[in-house]
């Protein structure tokens, strides 16, 4: 009988394989600090995400125990940061994996196991010459962290090398070396990678050491390196009283711009595509450096409805910053139907009321505000079945915008009510309120009664909102952490949450999310309904969990962007087959819809054209 520590238990491996690669462990979004070894050596392999991949690979015997593997595993201090960070967004507890890795390594070494030494080859030596000894590797324990992501339709592909340049000059040299030697190369930021685009048998260029941010308040711009994440840039801008339009917090800003263009609910006022860029510097695949504003440079602002290669690797970007007023607050406007919610979002966008505007479906809202999946599920049921709050329009606005909105709709959930609701959510589930409201017969939706001014003191009494109340929803050992976390005012501030988007990764807490993004016309609403119905029918046909994500208005409400999500277990081959079959129907369906309705454009056509002028893809 083998020593149980000789191998990694299957249950642990399964946990490790569930890592969603959303990269939230790579940003200090909860002020817990980063995983200490990864902070010093920011290969993905040192972050919890990489350690999860390493665990899965070792358990499956895909790679040997190498020198890097020993270092990666040994360097873990079992500090628990990964547990707190990962639980917040996924509900997972990676600490069990980290402990199992350590136990596995101990057993391996005690048995006299020797770490495999991976010999250096010429390309590696050349790469090390460019970036230094520490920042290029061909050790499988590192490579495995760059070999796959949860995208179910791409196979694992081990790169030959991973290299982390420290400057634009080094990055250009790497590209020139790759071009010279005909070794394929791809670049990846430190952000999440979930679409299977950044794999190569050649060189993976990880820009995570290139994180310089220079704010230029005189020009309302920021100059950033390619490794700067959305969270880091937003934080730097916010400290100076500005805001940037960014995407998912762990995603690199430059990568997002080049890949799909930046869009968020802020796109309502800040635009998309070229709207964010003042200038960008690229190196093309032959190593030629050019800037977007150079009249002789390739036209990155144009758009063609076809799959294009990217103009090159972004070395630096000068992006726009936006002013912030001190009276901004968030509010939610509930609706029972999608048509009403979209119509309202379009209306206020057209009237230039509010800043960030987004129509959220029930899954998003309940998931964003719930610290556990179970609470999210129960919350959603109460929101939709009892409060009749099937959709909300989330708005950030100054006091004038908020006053206008209050005159336009019968019910708003303002920032203080939102805070009360969020902090008291566990009490809502067990309270008699749901029963009382269930019995309510009214010609108006129940939420109008529940969120009426007279009801607010009652709600407060029912919910007894406090960080401690909310923390009661999580496991006992995490309660102190959650209580302290939610004592911070920004954690319940809709403005901050909308800017930093740290809760949006929760949307795939129950399963990996497969997001479809489509630019749409906001009228006629029939087009939106038809699109959603088609997505829903395809998913149902293949037995895939699915839901509307969000709709955000763009360009004064003439257009918008819609996200529809399919949810699968990316480690389940049956689920992967389902999504493969569904994909064969989704793409023709969206293409067909785009021929029927002006303004429908699949985001896949924007890939690598993210710097394009929005007019070029919204109105052609």
């Amino acid at each position: 009988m083998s020593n149980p520590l000789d191998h990694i238990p299957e249950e642990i491996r399964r946990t490790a394989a569930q890592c969603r690669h959303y990269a939230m462990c790579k940003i200090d979004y909860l002020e817990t600090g980063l995983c200490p070894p990864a902070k010093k050596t920011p290969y993905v392999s040192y972050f919890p995400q990489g350690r999860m991949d390493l665990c899965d690979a070792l358990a499956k015997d895909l790679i040997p125990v190498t020198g890097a593997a020993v270092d990666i595993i040994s360097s873990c201090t079992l500090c628990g940061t990964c547990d707190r960070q990962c639980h917040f967004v996924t509900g997972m507890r990676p600490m069990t994996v980290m402990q199992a890795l350590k136990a596995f390594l101990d057993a391996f070494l005690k048995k006299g196991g020797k770490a495999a030494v991976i010999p250096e080859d010429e390309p590696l030596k050349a790469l090390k010459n460019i970036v230094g000894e520490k920042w290029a590797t061909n050790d499988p324990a590192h490579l495995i962290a760059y070999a796959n992501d949860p995208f179910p339709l791409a196979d694992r592909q081990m790169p030959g090398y991973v290299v982390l340049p420290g400057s634009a000059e080094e990055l250009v040299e790497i590209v020139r070396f790759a071009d010279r030697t005909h070794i394929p190369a791809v670049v990846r930021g430190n952000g999440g990678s979930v679409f299977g685009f950044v794999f190569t048998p050649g060189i993976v260029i990880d820009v995570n050491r290139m994180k310089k941010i220079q704010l230029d308040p005189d020009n309302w711009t920021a100059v950033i390196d390619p490794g700067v994440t959305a969270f880091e840039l937003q934080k730097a801008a916010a400290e100076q009283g500005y805001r940037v339009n960014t995407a998912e917090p762990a995603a690199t800003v430059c990568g997002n711009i080049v890949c799909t263009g930046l869009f968020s609910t802020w796109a309502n006022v800040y635009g998309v595509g070229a709207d964010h860029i003042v200038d960008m510097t690229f190196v093309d695949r032959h190593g030629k450096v050019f800037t977007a504003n150079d009249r002789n440079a390739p036209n990155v602002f144009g758009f063609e409805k076809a799959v294009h290669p990217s103009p090159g690797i972004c070395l630096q970007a000068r992006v726009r910053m936006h002013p912030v007023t001190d009276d901004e607050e968030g509010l939610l406007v509930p609706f029972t139907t999608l048509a009403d919610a979209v119509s309202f979002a379009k209306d206020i966008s057209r009237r230039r009321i509010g800043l960030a505007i987004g129509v959220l479906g029930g899954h998003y809202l309940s998931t964003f505000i719930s610290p556990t999946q179970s609470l999210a599920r129960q919350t959603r049921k109460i929101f939709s079945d009892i409060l009749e709050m099937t959709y909300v329009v989330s708005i950030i606005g100054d006091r004038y915008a908020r006053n206008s909105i209050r005159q336009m709709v019968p019910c708003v959930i303002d920032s203080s009510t939102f805070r009360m609701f969020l902090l008291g959510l566990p009490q809502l589930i067990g309270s008699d309120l749901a029963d009382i409201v269930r019995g309510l017969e009214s010609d108006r939706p129940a939420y109008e009664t529940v969120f009426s001014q007279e009801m607010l003191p009652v709600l407060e009494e029912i919910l007894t909102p406090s960080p401690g109340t909310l923390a009661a929803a999580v496991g006992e050992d995490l309660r102190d952490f959650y209580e302290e976390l939610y004592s911070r005012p920004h954690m319940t501030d809709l403005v901050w949450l909308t800017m930093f988007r740290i809760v949006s990764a929760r949307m795939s807490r129950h399963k990996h999310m497969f997001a479809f993004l489509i630019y749409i016309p906001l009228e006629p609403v029939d087009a939106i309904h038809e699109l959603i119905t088609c997505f829903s029918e395809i998913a149902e046909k293949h037995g895939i969990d699915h839901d509307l994500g969000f709709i955000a208005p763009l360009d004064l409400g003439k257009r918008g962007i819609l996200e529809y999500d399919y949810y699968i277990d990316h480690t389940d081959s049956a689920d992967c087959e389902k999504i493969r079959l569904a994909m064969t129907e989704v793409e023709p369906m969206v293409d067909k819809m785009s021929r029927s309705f002006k303004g429908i454009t699949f985001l896949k056509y924007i890939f690598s054209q993210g710097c394009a002028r929005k007019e070029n893809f919204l109105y052609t």
Partner: protein
Amino acid sequence: MPEKKIFCIPETCSKKELLGYAQPFFKNNGGEIRAAADDITGRRRSKKTCFLLTGATGFLGIHLADMLAKEGHTVILPARSWDNTAPEERINALFKWLGREGSPSCVQIVPADLNRPDLGLSPADYHRLASSIDEIIHCASDTSFSERKRPQIEKANVENLHHLLEFAAKSRCCFFHFISTAYAAGKKRGVCPEALVDTRSFFNVYEETKHRAEMTAAKRCNREGIRLNIYRPSIVYGHSRTGKTLRFNALYYPVKILVFLKNLYLEKHREQALESAERMGISFSADGTAHMPIRIEASPSGGINLIPVDFFIAAFSAIMETATDGGIFHITNDKTKPLFDIIHFTRKYFHITGIQAVAAENFPAGHPNSLEILFNRYTEVYRHYMQDERIFDNTRAGAILKAKGISCPDFDYRIFSTCMRYAESVNWGNAS
């Protein structure tokens, strides 16, 4: 030889004409009907009648099913799955709730769906069912009041009735029993007769759809030679002796709101509760009595017409047995309960002061307090029923019930407290 029709309404007749035929209801107009009254009575007595009863997953429906089963009749209960619970499971649970071991052997549960024209049955099953049943009791209904639910209410109360009547026409059904409501009379003051009435004015969509359903049933049954009884109960509460009920709406809901608010503050930490309660205008005396200053508009001449479920079942059974020629019957309480009395009962039972019934002319315009606004928001749809001035003539039903020695109990404090004790014991039906 088929018996002559005892009522006949031409297929093409207008609503006005229909009403003409219905005053008095169900005249013998010389046509053919499906079964003679004696035959119907004989089959029932020999327990050969097979009843199809809809709505058995509801409060009245399950009581009717139980009553029929106890009388030894064969009963078929069409029902659908709900919330991942199979029809059998739903109905068995209700029989158990009634204190039975489960569905009696004479009860047959058939998965079916009235929302569908074919009742959700295969052609063979549809035909089999149609050739099995003798009488139909239609108790399924959507009792929502809110206008924005109109499509769903119309579907349940009118469109689905068409599906059932079509089925009845194709079946060997000879008697259709329709559970309507006394409030199908619509908006009016004074006497509401036991007859079809011509009105287009209703307090809510529930009343309106029940009115339309009565018309529909009368017309189709006449055309098909099917006898029709329309039973019109007023507001049904729990069992008069045990208080047992399934639903805590209507009578219960406004009381439940008050108790909810009182308990919300009372059950919390004392000091914190007092401060918070004060903001709502609620205060507590040393013995736990809550002072809740709420003025409720009341009509001195109006009130609430309440009947217990046991009376309804007894009345239904008696009318069904006696009125084999068909007709409309008010199953109501001769003693409408003034709102003043209900408020008094509530104050006494739940130890609440400050709630007052105020005559409309004395109700101060504007400036309601927060508690009043809140109470009104939650109970708005019941306002008309709390000060109802409709008087339900029950000459026809009354004669039958009197002969059988059945009378409706006065809704006094004893019954009120029985009902409320039961409500509290089951947390007002809230399982969580």
